[in-house]
């Protein structure tokens, strides 16, 4: 029987996952910071409330399938999977190291539970749609497909090929989740290649669209449940998130898209020697609001 978590318990879990993201990125010495921190609440909600899954039986036929299209935010998936019991939390230290199951971008065959290999942006929604098509029309299964994407990969043409396919085929067993954090490597999305009006674009492709506060775990769970109740349309949840959420100097700053803490001195940022301590302290104390017993 799956454990039912309270919202405060889930919030605490998300915070632990954020701390582990910082720690694993520091050990790795490279990787992406902003996206994983921004999606920690969503991945906590998915792995500890929404998904039908069994960490001890990752190939369980009836499991929901979670596709991570923007593979570069894999630290949040790895951390959530470790906390959910797929593998020991200690293994997070091997991120990006030679021989590790935790590759820099996720590789399906290396780690049970990943579902797909991903990284190059724009192909996840296609894979998810292929699975959902089989589930809905050919094998008539009960499992759902979830597909997490970045906002910048909405710039990739293939994403819209898949959106058109899912809309045409009324894939109501598919829930897409867009991390709408407004940043990408080269800058702000609306400067690089404007995406708005994103909601109307998906609606025009015959999708049901919900805009969600990506840091309100209760709202995230509610939205996922609403999506299950929508018939004859796939649903996309536009998750409004703050990149780097929980670490003040990283929040909303595209410089932290592809950089781990503790590696480089950047203008206007804490010295590199200080970055990790500040980040972990802010997370432990929720930005100075509480005094944690862990301090």
């Amino acid at each position, binding site marked *: 029987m799956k454990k039912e978590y309270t919202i405060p318990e889930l919030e605490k879990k998300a915070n632990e996952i954020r701390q582990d993201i910082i720690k694993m990125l520091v050990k790795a010495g490279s990787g992406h910071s902003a996206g994983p921190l921004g999606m920690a609440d969503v991945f906590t909600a998915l792995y500890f409330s929404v998904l039908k899954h069994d960490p001890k039986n990752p190939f369980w036929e009836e499991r929901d399938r979670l596709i991570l299209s923007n593979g570069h935010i894999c630290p949040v998936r790895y951390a959530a999977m470790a906390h959910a019991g797929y593998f020991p939390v200690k293994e997070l230290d091997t991120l990006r190291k030679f021989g590790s199951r935790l590759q820099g971008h996720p590789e399906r065959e290396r780690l049970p539970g990943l579902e797909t*290999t991903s990284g190059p942006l724009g192909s996840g929604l*296609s894979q998810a749609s292929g699975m959902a098509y089989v589930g809905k029309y050919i*094998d008539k299964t009960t499992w759902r497909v979830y597909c997490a994407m970045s906002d910048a990969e909405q710039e990739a043409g293939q994403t819209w090929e898949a959106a058109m396919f899912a809309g045409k085929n009324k894939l109501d067993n598919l829930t897409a989740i867009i991390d709408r954090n407004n940043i990408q490597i080269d800058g702000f999305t609306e400067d690089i290649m404007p995406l708005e009006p994103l909601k109307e674009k998906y609606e025009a492709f015959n999708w049901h669209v919900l805009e969600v506060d990506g840091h309100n775990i209760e709202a995230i769970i509610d939205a996922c449940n609403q999506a299950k109740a929508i018939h004859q349309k796939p649903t996309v949840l536009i998750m409004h998130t703050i990149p780097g959420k929980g670490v003040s100097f990283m929040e909303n700053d595209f410089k932290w898209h592809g950089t781990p803490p503790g590696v480089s001195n950047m203008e206007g940022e804490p010295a590199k020697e200080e970055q990790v301590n500040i980040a972990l302290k802010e997370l432990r104390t929720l930005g100075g609001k509480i005094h944690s017993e862990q301090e």
Partner: protein
Amino acid sequence: MVNPKAHLSEKLFHDEIEKVPTRNGYGEGLVAAGEENKQVVVLCADLTESTRSEAFQKKFPERFIEVGVAEQNMASLASGMALAGKVPFISSYATFSPGRNNEQIRTTIAINNVNVKIAGAHAGISVGPDGATHQALEDMALMRVMPRMSVIYPCDALEAKKATLAASRITGPVYLRLARAGTPQFTTEETPFEFGKAEVFYEGKDATIVACGPLLYEAMIAANLLEKEGVSVEVINNHTIKPLDQSTILQSVQKTKALVTVEEHQVAGGMGSAVVEMLSQQFPVPVEMVGVKDRFGESGEPDELWDAFGLSHPHIIEAVKRVMKRK
């Protein structure tokens, strides 16, 4: 002489030999594979009739998926379907698939290591009047350098049918190369076809021709004409480019000590390239390579293009004579 064990058509060198495009064999093979295995599904990108996926669509409509003009989506949809237990065949023209969707094949099919079959029709200049944009000449190179990918290029429609069925029985990604134009149907039901096993179609001792695809027939004509001049040539049907049947090729070349490769593809990176990569390390001999030499195709009729691009049997005969002088 023609190898009797190849069981080739009695009309092999007759003018009235029937001409059938290899894509037709693919269509028949899909139906056979679909009958044998309920997990087989077929996806097509708005080329259902042309790729001959139509027969499968009619027979198994619930297992046929039309994706529109979206080859990148098609490759990754197939990846997802394979992960859900299906054996997807994706059908398009080779310039688009594996051309346009090469990265999707790399990431979501090959690195992902899923059981997807890629059928690239309209490969080679024999596509004819459509011109360079639709004449794939680089596709075997793209697929042969892809780890985990197998590559099959059948010589006629019946072999294409056998190859399609064989591909459905292999676990893992496979590229099937197909042609548009009708070409001689010279193998028979009895002709051996085994994935990964090259076959000696013509026995000889003075030089070896390794060929694949419809040009194999031109190589057979060349061998027949050369025999009349007293030159004894061995012709090998190398339908599986990857994994390469090293021993059959080596055995022949160790005997003849001269090699001509023949293919309707860029010489760079193609089937001949795979063969000489192996031989240069194991048994170097003089080599002549018949193929397309670093240029794109153009409009024309298949036969006149084969002549103009130096691929038809008179060019193969010249190549054999050149290589024998270098022995």
